[in-house]
């Protein structure tokens, strides 16, 4: 059968379905809450050279784009002559995988009729990796848990029992963690079975021609989008809280013809704590932000990702080398799109939104009995919560919605069954959206206390408390976040802290920045916002000039 253009298109579609099936298999079987509930995973198929051909449309950009880079590392470390049918490789190396030890990337070579044709890769966040547990307080990656370098998890069908034993003995939830490793291997196998069907249906002996077709088309379309942008170098700078001191994030975005480079030179140096970001993760989020604005409809593959070049000086907080602590690299990572989009705004005004809360407010709570001899069981509760998104050039920002991350929150009722706590409030934070012709999205208020007999520890990993999300084009800033107890005690935005028995934790999540001069906002909309309580009377009068 001679393959036509239509055949290649169908195969491309099929590959997307293959990786969706791969991802579905992982979501169904994974234990990690963030995989199942929040879609914190990725799955993809690669050619023999390690070029990504297709990727499941799931989860979070940090995984999605970082995993694309990981397979060439595997090819190099395992060695071409050492790749056998029935092999499966893994790593959680933050610098070769997806940025912190909690993420395992599993790579399985695919063989068709005995010939090595490509790879499947999948990444998932496991519930524990030993060390201090999930939180920002370590000073070196060694404290953050076990690092498994690129190696064989399965060789020619034989599981590396020694490795499994080491992992079992170094993590807290061993059944769940090891279970998730098998889930990752199983999802690759599911994708593989489907790929084999496709290759036999279309009588393909190898994937190179199909890979060229996908990558060349995607690359050409992406380059065209970049070429359509006005040439020049565009700058942006954004201050954020960091851990022990504020972080200055700087970018120079250069567009010349069909090339694009985002350079983070001038960005602050590393932190002593786990908010540092490995380069791969910075690149993933920078690329994601730019792609949303420039080429949102072009599927993710090596061809559509490579044109977005991203660099940062080694040693800065956005290119932190080993052995920097990186456990909560998501906080600054999630803020990277705001930085690059701010620069892009100078290039193409009217496309990118104002700054938003951006970094997720993940709350990891440990409930412990006040009286250790009471026999009450301890428990761990993880919540994902989002502040407001920045306003768009012609739309209000989305309230309490994750961006750039793609995770979901959990139900309050379900969370209260997980551990001994009560959530007294989870509601929009009135007046928190930055004023503007288009209003920033609102943040939210969350109030939590331990149930009778318990106290709560929590790992804070929150940003935009000192530096709020800025408005754009005369739009006002969003409201900054805050962390405190109901007695007025102000808590830190980062690090492990206690909520004593009988006290309530009050989290106020940041709002998004406004877009455009608030005085230009339609008076009807201002009045409606005031009636609904989205804005305060103060804002209506002062920012919007409403005659009340």
């Amino acid at each position, binding site marked *: 059968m001679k393959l036509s253009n239509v055949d290649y298109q169908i195969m491309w579609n099929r590959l997307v379905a293959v990786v969706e099936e791969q991802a579905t298999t992982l979501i*169904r079987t994974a*234990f990690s809450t963030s995989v199942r509930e929040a879609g914190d995973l990725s799955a993809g198929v690669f050619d023999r050279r390690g070029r990504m051909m297709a990727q499941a449309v799931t989860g979070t950009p940090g995984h999605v784009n970082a995993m694309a880079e990981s397979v060439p590392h595997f090819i190099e470390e395992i060695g071409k002559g050492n790749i056998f049918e029935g092999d499966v490789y893994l790593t959680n190396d933050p610098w070769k995988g997806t940025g912190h030890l909690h993420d395992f990337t599993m790579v399985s070579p695919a063989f068709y009729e005995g010939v090595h044709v490509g790879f499947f890769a999948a990444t998932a966040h496991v519930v524990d990796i030993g060390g201090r547990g999930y939180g920002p307080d370590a000073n070196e990656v060694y404290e953050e848990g076990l690092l498994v370098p690129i190696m064989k998890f399965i060789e020619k069908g034989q599981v590396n029992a020694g490795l499994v034993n080491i992992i079992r003995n170094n993590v807290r939830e061993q059944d769940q963690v090891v279970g998730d490793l098998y889930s990752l291997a199983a999802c690759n196998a599911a994708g593989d079975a489907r790929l084999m069907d496709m290759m036999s249906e279309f009588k393909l002996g190898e994937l190179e021609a199909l890979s060229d077709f996908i990558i060349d088309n995607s690359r050409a379309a992406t380059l065209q989008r970049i070429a359509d942008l006005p040439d020049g170098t565009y700058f942006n700078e954004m201050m954020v809280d960091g851990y022990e001191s504020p972080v200055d994030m700087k970018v120079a975005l250069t567009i010349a013809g069909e090339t694009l480079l985002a350079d983070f030179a001038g960005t602050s140096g590393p932190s002593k704590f786990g908010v540092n970001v490995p380069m791969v993760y910075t690149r993933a989020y920078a690329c994601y932000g730019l792609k949303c604005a420039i080429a949102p409809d072009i599927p993710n593959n090596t061809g559509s990702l490579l044109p977005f070049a991203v660099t940062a000086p080694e040693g800065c907080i956005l290119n932190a080398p080993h052995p920097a602590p990186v456990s909560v690299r998501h906080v600054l990572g999630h803020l990277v799109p705001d930085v690059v989009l701010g620069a892009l705004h100078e290039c193409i005004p009217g496309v990118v939104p104002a700054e938003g809360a951006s970094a997720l407010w993940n709350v990891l709570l440990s409930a412990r009995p006040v009286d250790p001899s009471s026999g009450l069981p301890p428990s761990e509760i993880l919540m994902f919560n989002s502040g407001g998104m920045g306003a768009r050039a012609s739309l209000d920002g989305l309230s309490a919605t994750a961006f750039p991350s793609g995770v979901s929150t959990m139900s309050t009722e379900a969370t209260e069954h997980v551990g001994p706590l009560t959530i007294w409030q989870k509601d929009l934070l009135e007046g928190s959206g930055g004023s503007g012709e288009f209003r920033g999205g609102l943040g939210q208020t969350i109030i939590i206390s331990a149930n009778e007999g318990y106290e709560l520890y929590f790992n804070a990993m929150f940003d935009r408390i000192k530096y709020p999300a800025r408005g754009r084009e005369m739009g006002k800033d969003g409201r900054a976040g805050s962390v405190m107890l109901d007695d007025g005690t102000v808590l830190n935005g980062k690090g492990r802290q206690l909520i004593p028995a009988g006290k309530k934790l009050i989290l106020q999540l940041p709002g998004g920045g406004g877009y455009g001069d608030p005085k230009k906002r339609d008076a009807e909309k201002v009045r409606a916002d005031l009636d609904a309580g989205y804005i305060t009377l103060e804002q209506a009068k002062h920012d919007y000039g409403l005659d009340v």
Partner: protein
Amino acid sequence: MTQNNARVGVDIGGTFTDVALDLNGTLYTGKVLTNYHQPEQAILDGIELVCKRAKMAVKDITTVIHGTTLVTNSLIERRGARTAFITTEGFRDVVEMRTENRFEQYDLNLTLPTPLVKRTERYTLKERVSATGEVLTNIDQNELDALVKEVLAEGYEAVAVGLIHSYANDVNEVQVQQAFAAAAPELCVSISSHVSPQMREFQRFNTVIANAYVRPQVSEYLGRLVSRLIETGITCPVFMMHSAGGLISVDTASEFPVRLLESGPAGGAIFAAKFAASYGEDQVVSFDMGGTTAKICLIEEGRPKTANTFEVARTYRFAKGSGMPLSTPVVEMVEIGAGGGSIAHVDDMKQIRVGPRSAASEPGPACYQRGGENPTVTDANLLLGRLDPDLFAGGEIKLSTAMANDAMQVKVASKADVNTEQAAFGVTEVVDENMANAARVHTVENGKDISNFAMIAFGGGAPLHACRLCEKLDVDYLIVPPGAGVGSAIGFLNAPFSYEATKGLYQRLSQFDPERINHLLTDLRAEALAFVERGAGEIETVTSVQAFMRYTGQGGEIAVDIDYKDYVDADVALFREKFEASYHKLFGRIIDGLGIEITNWSITVASKLEASKPIELRRSGQQVEVTKTREFFDAALRKFVTASEIQRETLMPGDAVSGPAVIVEDETSTVVTSGYTVVAQDDKSMLLVNKKTMEAV
């Protein structure tokens, strides 16, 4: 003359109102245009039509069974009542904050669907129940009275009440309901602990709001319908089809209209299930394709798969998460934006894309000659010889090959650098690929392999595409039943009386408390049975129970079938065993060392149906003589082939036609590809069999 048994099923769809009459075992069907202003008028017209065909008087009808998309449409088009929502202080924005994520990752200008009740229509009350059902904060009666007064002063048409953890203890919701009943007895008040007592506030609140929102309209409509039927002389009982594939009384439907959502498609699933059961096919995927969407449903052991949550009114290309998630029992279906009217275009990577935008019936596909300029799936089918331009819709719509060709050339072929034949092939192949992929993912999600399934195809477009889908999915047997154009209405006639009662009761197996479970099951069964008896009187029933269970720490539950009986302490082992068996079936493994918990419960009480008459499928037959041929494009062979053309009504049981063939009837055509043979069955169904299977026998 003996007593007639004349049962009528009526399905109001977006375009047509379908009617099926079963008169002493003989089926008569008809279609009339849906009347948006007076839906009941179309019902009367349709009933008159089929009665005329059956040569019987309308007054002799013994049962009317009705299903409708009006409730779904009312939610999509936001035509419901002005509704107030009352909730726990601190949770005013649950329905606005949704899941806090974006269903489309790359769209910076994404908008989220707005809740049915605006923030100004959402009121809060100081009160609180804990996860275990303990009242932490009692309602202050004075505050409640003031709130009731405030709400009444605003003149709302309906009120919904949803309080945190009310599924575990309804005392506070009932107190609110009573306060309204005392102050305004006429006002419709829905409370979440009665409409949908399941854990997860977002879905439960949505459900009670949706119920309140459509309730005044639905109860008025049903009242009108019943009185119009009586005026016409139809005084027999009227029942409503609900979304989980059973019948309820008009009164129950008026009280819980949210249960009527998607009752039409549920009827389609029942229709397919009946055939699956009579053929003894245990694993069937039903495939229903219309003008705008295709629907896929799994039918195992003769029962359509059901679920307890469902997303209605998706706003963004049918994307998961872009609608309104509700917790109500439904037949579980996957819906894809792929139908005959789906529009094809070429993207920036020169790839052909199809749907979800649809040309609908106005202006319709380019070949309809009604001003449509966009090439659609129907245009592609025409160009590929799969449709006869002179016989479409029984010859009522003349199709223009030239116009289809022009649209395909301008909008697809020239942009993708291929000829029109390749373009048309690309369009159908992309749409078939999309549907096949969705079907495959759906079976994977249920831990199954679709190649072990048989397919049942119905709806106008399905018989054109189903055989190619089977090739793609490695499915060997495809059944195209008779009357497939009005499948849902026929399905209504085969549905049992049933009611599913659900309730959240959280329990870890480590703290197994059989007494609470027994208590709950007894209550739920009594509740469900009362609803069934309200419709059917005292009849023989079957009770089935599902516990929704998971490993501690997991986010989603799986449904575990358990027996309806009195449980004792030792039965904790049984629950563990059943959970592990179900888990293993779905996920291929179990995990030692983890706790297990139960979150929600569901009981279905259904009237016992006569077992379907078993029919032996004829898997081979006698080749008939072919007198007419036609050229069509065989996708698997990538070329035009000469196909036999046969009128469906001429086929006798046991007749066979080897593919390539087209079996023509008024409502649709069945395409039999070169790889399949069609065999006519005793009940007028057609079975398409993969030739490889026949050779193997």
